[in-house]
C-alpha cells in the first residue's frame, strides 16, 4: 500500500518538471524558472516525509521521535564518557545485585516443590525448647498413637537417618548416610521414581526382603546414571538389600542421603527399644492432609492429641523441656531458615539500588545544570516541555538500558554466589538457576530508574527570562538545584551508614567467634571419624580394635599422643540431643525439680591430654578402666561446682536417671575419679556445660580418633589410615581435619555472612564516595568566580580548602545522623517481624561513622584542592 521513497521522490520530481516546463512555456528564463518552481514548492524533504507519514500508523511518529532522541542521546553521552561509564557501572551493580537476589528468593521461597500436591504435604516436628532441643523427632509409640487418633491427616510417612557401611556399588566400603522409611513414605511425599520402583507397603515388616532406593544426586554423580544398577545387591552393615529404583530429583529433606532403604535393613529399627520405648526418638514425621482438611485444622487436632499423649505418659515428656508440636507445610519448613537471611539480603540489595539511583540522579542533575544553556536554546526555538522531557528520558533510557544489560550479565555470577551462600540455610537454594526472572527484574528496575531520572532535572521555565542562560556560557547553580544535589548525597551517606553498621555488626560477631577461647589446644590435634560400622556397637571386639588402633598409631613417627572419643567438638554438635538426666550421691533436688541434664561423652585414656584439657582433680581414665571393672566417670568442673559442696566430687557416685536408659534395667552408679576443666564442644563461643565423660573401653562406644601431632598434622593422615586398615580392612577412616579447621568450617556461614554484607557495604561506600565527590566538584566548579573574588581580596587558599572540606564533612554528618535515626527505626520495625534482629553495638556504629567521615574527607580533598588553586585572573575574566 505505502508507496516507497523512490515513488514519492518521482512524484515530486514530476511535479517540479511540469511546473518548470509551464514557466518556460510562459517565457521565463530556464534557470530562474527552476528556482521559482523550487521556491513555490517549498521544503521537498518535509513534504515527502509528511506524504509518507500519511501511510504510517500513528505510534510510528512517537517511536521515530524517540529513536531520534535516543540517537541524539547516544552522541551526547559519547561526549561525556566518564559520566556515562560511572552511571552505567553504578546502575549495573544495583540492578545486578537485585536481580540475582530476587531470583534466589523466588526459587527458594516462592516456587512450589516437585512433590505431588505439595500444598497438602505437611511436616510435623516435636521440640523441647526448655532444654534447648529444637527437634526431638518422634518415637515409634508416639507415631502409632498419632496415626490411630488423628483424622485430619490421611497418611503419615516416617523417615529416620542411619549411617550404613555400604559395599557393593564399586569402590571401597564407606559410610553412607541413609534414610530408613516405612512403606507409606514415598506415597505421602508424593515422589516418583525415574527408574524402577520406590519403597512401598510390601517392603514393610521384619520378613520383607531388603530394598534400597538411590537418590538422584547419588545415582548421577557417583554412578554416572548407570541404568543397570537396578537389581544389584548391596551390603549395608550386616544386612543386604536389593537396589529397586532411583528417586526423581527432589529436595532432600529432612536429610541429604545417598540411599533410602526399608526398615528391615536396619536391625535397630526392628528391635524392642525402637518399637516400644516412647522416649527413643529418632524418626521424622510427614503427613498428607485428609480431603477437606486444612493445615490449621490439622495443627489444632495434632496439638490436642499430642497434649493428651503428654498427659497420659508424663514420664516421657520433660516438664522443663516444655515439649511442643509444630505443624507446617513442608515447603514452609524447608524455606523458613533461609527466609530471614534472604529478605535481609533483598533489603540490602534494595538499599544498594536506592544508593545507586540517588548517585546517578546526582550525576544527571549536575549534568543537566551544565546543559541548561542547551535546553534554554531548545525551549526558545519552540521545543515543548514534552519534547524536552523526551530528550532527557531518551538519555536516561540509554544509560539505564546499558546499566540493565551489564547488570544482567553481572547477575549470573551473583546468583551462583548468593545461592551457594543460601544453600547453607535451605537445600532448595542448590537448585537455583539463572532464569528469565533476572531479565524481567533487571528490565523493570532499569525502566523505573529511567523514568525517575528523567524527572529529576528541572526544565527551563518558558516564562523565565531565558536570556541569562543563553547569554553566559558559564554554569550557574540555583539554590534549588544545590539543595537537591545535597539531599541525594545525604541520602547515599545515610543508606551507606545503615549497610556499614550492619556489616560491622556481622564482622564484630565473626571476630568475637573467632577469637573466643575454646579451652582446647586446637592446632596440633587431628580428628578422624572411624565409625563403628564394621566392628559393631558396644562389642568387645570394638574395644579390642580401639585399643590396638591407639597403641599402634602412637608408635608412628610424628605422633605425640592418641586417644579415641565419641564426639568431634562442634562438628558433631547437635547429634547427641540435649543431654541426659543424671543425679549424684548426696544431692537432694528441691521439690518438683527435675534431674539436671548432662552431656554424655565416651572417651578413651589420654583424651584430655591430646586435646589439652587440664585434669583439675583426681585422675584421667587408664587402660585399666575396662569392661568388667568398677564403673568410673569423669565430670567437668561445672558439674563438680554445681552439685557438690566445695566442688569436691572425686570418689562420689553419679547415676544416669534418664528414662531413655530404663530398658537397660536399674541404673548402676559410677564412681567419679576425676574433674576436668570446662570445655564446650557444642558451641564455638563456650558456655558452662555440664559434661560427663564415660570410659570408652567400658562402654565400647567411640567412633572418633584424636591424634596429637608433633609436626604437620595432615602429613599423618596416610599413615594413620594405613594402620587402621591393617587392623580392620573394611574400616572407614573419614573426614580427617585439625580441630582448628573444624572450627573454621563450622564458622564459615558467619564468615560468608560478614563477607556478603561487607561486599554490599563496600559497594555502597564506593558509590557514596563518588556521589559526595561529584557534588563537591560540581559545587566548586560552579563557584569558581566566588573563589576567585575571595582570593583576590586576600582570602588564604587554606581557608577555601577548609571551607570545601567542611562542606563535605557536613553532608556526611547529616547523612550519618539520618542513617542512624532511620536505621534505629528500621531495626525496631524489623524486630516486630523477626525474632533475631539485634541493634548493632557501639563499636560497629563508631566504626561506620569513622569510615564515612574519612571517606567524605577523602572525597572532598580533590575538589577542595581545586578550589584553593583557582586562578584569580582566569576566574574574574570568565565573567
Amino acid at each position, binding site marked *: *500500500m505505502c*508507496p516507497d521513497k523512490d515513488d514519492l521522490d*518521482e*512524484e*515530486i520530481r*514530476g*511535479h517540479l*518538471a*511540469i*511546473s518548470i*516546463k*509551464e514557466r518556460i512555456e*510562459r517565457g521565463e528564463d530556464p534557470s530562474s524558472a527552476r528556482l521559482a518552481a523550487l521556491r*513555490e*514548492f*517549498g*521544503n521537498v524533504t*518535509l*513534504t515527502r516525509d*509528511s*506524504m509518507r*507519514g*500519511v*501511510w504510517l500508523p500513528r505510534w510510528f511518529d512517537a517511536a521515530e521521535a524517540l529513536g531520534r532522541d535516543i540517537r541524539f542521546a547516544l552522541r551526547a553521552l559519547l561526549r561525556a564518557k566518564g559520566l556515562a561509564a560511572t552511571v552505567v557501572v553504578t546502575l549495573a551493580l544495583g540492578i545486578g545485585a537485585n536481580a540475582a537476589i530476587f531470583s534466589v528468593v523466588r526459587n527458594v521461597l516462592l516456587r512450589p516443590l516437585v512433590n505431588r500436591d505439595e500444598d497438602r504435604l505437611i511436616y510435623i516436628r516435636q521440640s523441647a525448647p526448655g532444654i534447648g532441643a529444637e527437634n526431638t523427632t518422634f518415637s515409634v509409640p508416639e507415631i502409632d498413637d498419632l496415626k490411630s487418633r488423628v483424622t485430619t491427616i490421611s497418611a503419615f510417612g516416617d523417615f529416620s537417618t542411619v549411617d550404613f557401611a555400604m559395599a557393593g556399588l564399586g569402590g571401597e566400603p564407606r559410610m553412607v548416610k541413609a534414610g530408613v522409611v516405612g512403606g507409606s513414605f514415598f506415597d505421602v511425599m508424593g515422589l516418583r521414581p525415574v527408574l524402577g520402583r520406590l519403597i512401598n507397603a510390601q517392603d514393610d515388616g521384619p520378613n520383607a526382603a531388603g530394598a534400597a532406593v538411590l537418590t538422584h544426586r547419588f545415582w548421577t554423580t557417583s554412578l554416572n546414571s548407570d541404568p543397570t544398577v537396578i537389581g544389584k545387591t548391596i551390603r549395608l552393615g550386616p544386612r543386604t538389600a536389593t537396589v529397586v529404583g532411583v528417586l526423581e530429583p527432589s529436595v532432600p529433606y529432612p536429610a541429604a542421603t545417598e540411599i533410602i532403604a526399608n526398615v528391615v535393613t536396619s536391625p535397630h529399627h526392628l528391635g524392642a527399644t525402637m518399637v516400644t520405648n516412647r522416649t527413643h526418638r529418632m524418626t521424622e514425621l510427614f503427613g498428607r492432609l485428609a480431603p477437606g482438611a486444612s493445615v490449621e485444622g490439622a495443627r489444632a487436632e495434632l496439638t490436642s492429641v499430642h497434649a493428651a499423649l503428654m498427659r497420659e505418659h508424663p514420664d516421657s515428656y520433660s516438664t522443663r523441656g516444655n515439649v511442643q508440636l509444630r505443624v507446617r507445610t513442608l515447603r514452609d519448613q524447608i524455606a523458613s531458615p533461609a527466609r530471614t537471611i534472604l529478605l535481609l539480603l533483598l533489603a540490602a540489595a534494595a538499599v544498594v539500588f536506592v544508593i545507586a539511583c540517588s548517585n546517578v540522579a546526582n550525576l544527571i542533575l549536575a549534568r543537566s545544570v551544565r546543559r541548561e544553556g542547551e535546553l534554554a536554546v531548545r525551549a526558545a526555538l519552540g521545543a515543548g516541555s514534552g519534547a524536552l522531557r523526551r530528550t532527557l528520558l531518551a538519555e536516561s533510557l540509554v544509560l539505564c538500558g546499558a546499566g540493565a544489560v551489564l547488570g544482567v550479565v553481572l547477575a549470573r555470577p551473583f546468583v551462583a554466589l548468593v545461592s551457594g551462600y543460601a544453600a547453607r540455610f535451605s537445600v532448595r537454594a542448590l537448585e537455583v538457576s539463572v532464569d528469565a526472572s533476572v531479565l524481567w527484574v533487571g528490565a523493570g528496575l532499569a525502566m523505573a530508574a529511567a523514568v525517575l531520572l528523567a524527572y529529576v532535572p528541572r526544565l527551563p521555565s518558558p516564562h523565565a527570562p531565558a536570556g541569562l542562560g543563553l547569554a553566559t556560557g558559564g554554569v550557574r547553580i540555583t539554590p534549588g538545584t544545590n539543595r537537591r544535589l545535597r539531599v541525594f548525597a545525604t541520602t547515599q551517606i545515610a543508606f551507606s551508614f545503615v549497610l556499614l553498621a550492619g556489616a560491622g555488626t556481622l564482622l564484630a560477631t565473626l571476630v568475637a567467634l573467632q577469637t573466643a577461647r575454646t579451652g582446647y589446644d586446637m592446632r596440633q590435634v587431628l580428628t578422624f571419624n572411624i565409625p563403628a560400622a564394621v566392628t559393631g556397637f558396644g562389642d568387645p571386639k570394638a574395644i579390642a580394635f580401639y585399643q590396638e588402633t591407639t597403641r599402634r598409631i602412637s608408635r608412628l613417627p610424628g605422633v605425640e599422643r592418641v586417644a579415641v572419643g565419641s564426639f568431634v567438638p562442634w562438628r558433631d554438635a547437635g547429634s547427641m540431643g540435649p543431654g541426659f538426666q543424671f543425679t549424684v550421691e548426696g544431692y537432694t533436688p528441691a521439690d518438683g525439680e527435675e534431674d539436671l541434664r548432662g552431656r554424655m561423652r565416651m572417651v578413651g585414656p589420654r583424651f584430655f591430654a591430646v586435646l589439652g584439657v587440664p585434669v583439675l582433680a583426681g585422675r584421667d581414665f587408664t587402660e585399666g578402666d575396662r569392661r568388667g571393672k568398677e564403673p568410673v566417670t569423669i565430670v567437668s568442673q561445672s558439674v563438680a561446682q554445681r552439685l557438690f559442696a566445695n566442688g569436691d566430687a572425686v570418689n562420689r557416685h553419679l547415676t544416669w536417671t534418664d528414662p531413655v536408659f530404663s530398658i537397660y534395667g536399674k541404673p548402676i552408679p559410677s564412681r567419679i575419679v576425676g574433674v576436668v576443666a570446662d570445655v564446650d564442644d557444642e558451641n564455638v563461643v563456650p558456655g558452662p556445660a555440664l559434661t560427663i565423660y564415660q570410659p570408652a573401653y567400658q562402654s565400647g562406644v567411640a567412633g572418633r580418633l584424636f591424634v596429637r601431632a608433633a609436626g604437620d598434622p595432615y602429613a599423618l593422615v596416610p599413615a594413620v589410615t594405613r594402620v587402621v586398615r591393617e587392623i580392620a580392612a573394611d574400616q572407614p577412616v573419614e573426614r580427617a581435619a585439625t580441630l582448628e579447621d573444624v572450627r573454621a568450617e563450622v564458622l564459615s556461614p558467619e564468615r560468608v555472612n560478614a563477607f556478603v554484607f561487607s561486599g554490599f557495604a563496600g559497594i555502597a561506600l564506593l558509590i557514596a564516595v563518588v556521589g559526595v565527590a561529584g557534588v563537591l566538584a560540581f559545587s566548586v566548579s560552579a563557584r569558581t568566580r566566588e573563589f576567585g573574588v575571595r582570593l583576590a581580596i586576600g582570602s588564604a587558599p587554606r581557608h577555601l580548602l577548609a571551607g570545601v572540606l567542611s562542606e563535605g564533612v557536613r553532608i556526611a554528618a547529616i547523612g550519618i545522623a539520618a542513617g542512624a535515626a532511620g536505621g534505629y527505626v528500621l531495626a525496631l520495625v524489623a524486630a516486630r517481624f523477626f525474632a533475631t534482629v539485634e541493634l548493632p553495638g557501639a563499636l560497629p556504629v563508631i566504626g561506620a561513622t569513622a569510615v564515612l567521615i574519612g571517606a567524605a574527607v577523602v572525597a572532598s580533598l580533590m575538589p577542595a584542592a581545586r578550589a584553593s588553586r583557582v586562578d584569580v585572573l582566569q576566574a574574574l575574566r570568565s565573567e
Partner: protein
Amino acid sequence: MAKHPDEQRLELLQGTLDMLILRTLQWGSRHGHGIGQAIRAQSDDLLKVETGSLYPALHRLVKRGWLKAEWGVSEANQRAKYYELTAAGKAQLSRERDRWSQLVNAIGRIMNPASASKE
C-alpha cells in the same frame, strides 16, 4: 499574470482542501500539479494550495479509498502520477457538497439575518 497582494489571498478553511480536491477531479483524472493549478485558476487566484499540504492530502484520500492513483504521462511528456475519483470518492464528494452548502447557509444566516430570512 497579476499577483494578488497578500491580504487578498484567502486562507483555505480548515477541512475544505479534501473537498476541493474531490471537486477538481469530478470531470476526470489530473496529476498533482494540475490539481493545484485548477484550484488556483477556478478561484481566480484567490486560493493557493501549498504543495506541502496538497500532496499529503492526496495520499490521505488515496489511503481512505476515495481516490486512486496511477502513473501516466503528462501533456508535456512528463511521467506523473494521475489521481482519479473512485465510486466511494464520488459519494464522498456529494456528501461534502451537501455539508458545505448547509454550512454556508448557516453561517450566512448568522452573518446576514435579514437576507437569509427572505429565502
